């Protein structure tokens, strides 16, 4: 039992010496007392080492072809990974970083980003359409308004002369402005005269009616 324990110690030492580069025959000379046991171990090591199979080169070629066909590593992912430190230095929100991220982002984010972009474009198109519609409504109403205005001017054609003159075109010339004011005053005076004449006619008519009424009343009194 004690010998077995000692052998374990010697075996560990042997492995250590082998690691240091000593040959097995040198080690056997160092421990003559355990020569037989160590020789057995050496034989075992040799038997194990003989199991070194050398795989067929064709196997490797087949593996390489299969893997290359699968093409797992995407260049984008690699570039993104390799640039990660540089990106961090520049700041995550830097425009270059954002552009890089856009190009080298992972597949699922590419889908999300493209869907987002499409939604944004659709929203912009809808907005533009809506604004165009409201503009058309305004555009249509302008000629309508103009036609209404024309109709109005035509219906009041009789008295428009003075009204038209009211809206004399502003030419920027002071003489035109003065003549426009004079015309305006003249038309106002003529309108006033017209009003006065109408009032006098109405008054004379009223006084005639009143005289008639008084005469009727007077004749009635006489009857009594």
């Amino acid at each position: 039992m004690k010998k077995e324990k000692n052998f374990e110690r010697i075996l560990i030492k042997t492995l250590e010496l082998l690691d240091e580069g000593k040959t097995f025959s040198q080690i056997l000379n160092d421990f003559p007392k355990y020569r037989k046991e160590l020789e057995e171990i050496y034989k075992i090591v040799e038997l194990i080492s003989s199991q070194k199979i050398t795989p067929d080169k064709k196997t490797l070629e087949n593996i390489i072809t299969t893997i290359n066909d699968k093409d797992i590593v995407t260049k984008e992912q690699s570039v993104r990974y390799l640039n990660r430190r540089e990106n961090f230095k520049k700041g995550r929100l830097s425009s270059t970083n954002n552009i890089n991220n856009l190009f080298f982002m992972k597949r699922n984010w590419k889908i999300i980003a493209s869907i987002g972009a499409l939604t944004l474009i659709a929203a912009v198109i809808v907005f533009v359409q809506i604004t165009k519609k409201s503009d058309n409504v305004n555009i249509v109403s302008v000629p309508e308004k103009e036609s209404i205005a024309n109709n109005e001017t035509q219906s009041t054609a009789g008295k428009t002369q003075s009204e038209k003159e009211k809206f004399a075109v502003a030419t920027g010339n002071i003489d035109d402005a003065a003549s426009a004011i004079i015309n305006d005053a003249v038309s106002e005076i003529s309108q006033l005269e017209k009003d006065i004449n109408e009032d006098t006619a109405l008054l004379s008519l009223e006084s005639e009616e009143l005289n008639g009424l008084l005469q009727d009343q007077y004749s009635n009194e006489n009857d009594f």
Partner: protein
Amino acid sequence: MKENTENLKFLIESVKKGDKNAFNILYKTYFTPLFRYIYLRINSKTETEDLVQEVFLRVLKNINKFEDRNKSPLNYFFTIARNLIIDYWKKKKEISINNEEILKAIHNNFNPHQIIQEKEINEIIKKSIKNLPTDQQEVIILKFINDMTNKEIANLMDRSEEAVRQLQCRALKKLRQTLKELKIL
């Protein structure tokens, strides 16, 4: 297996940039050690080929996650291989046969008077390695089949060099006992 870690790290960086040639060099560097490692753990050539391919695929898929952090690319490849082997056995749901049963089976077919063929010895060795506990199997394969240093193995298994040596010692003692019983030694 002495690897030039710096060159391999450079290769991995090139792979990250999409350089297929760099990945082909990585395949060539790790193909044989990975093949041997997996083959001795599952003992089936065709399934080993599939698993090696799966290791490369997983490395390629996750190459961007590989960080420098003083870890060698070898660790990366072997960690994936180890996980795949664990998954493989989980799928197989193999009920591990204990030592005695294996020895009995070997004894029944073994005639000491018969000249043991080299093929048979190889088969016994493979079975004996397979019968070791997982960490001992791993240490033996990495050390004596893949010629890795104890430092590399310790790094890979996330253990101290001393612990790795202990595991080697226990594995060799068990193998010695088995082979002695079979009168191979």
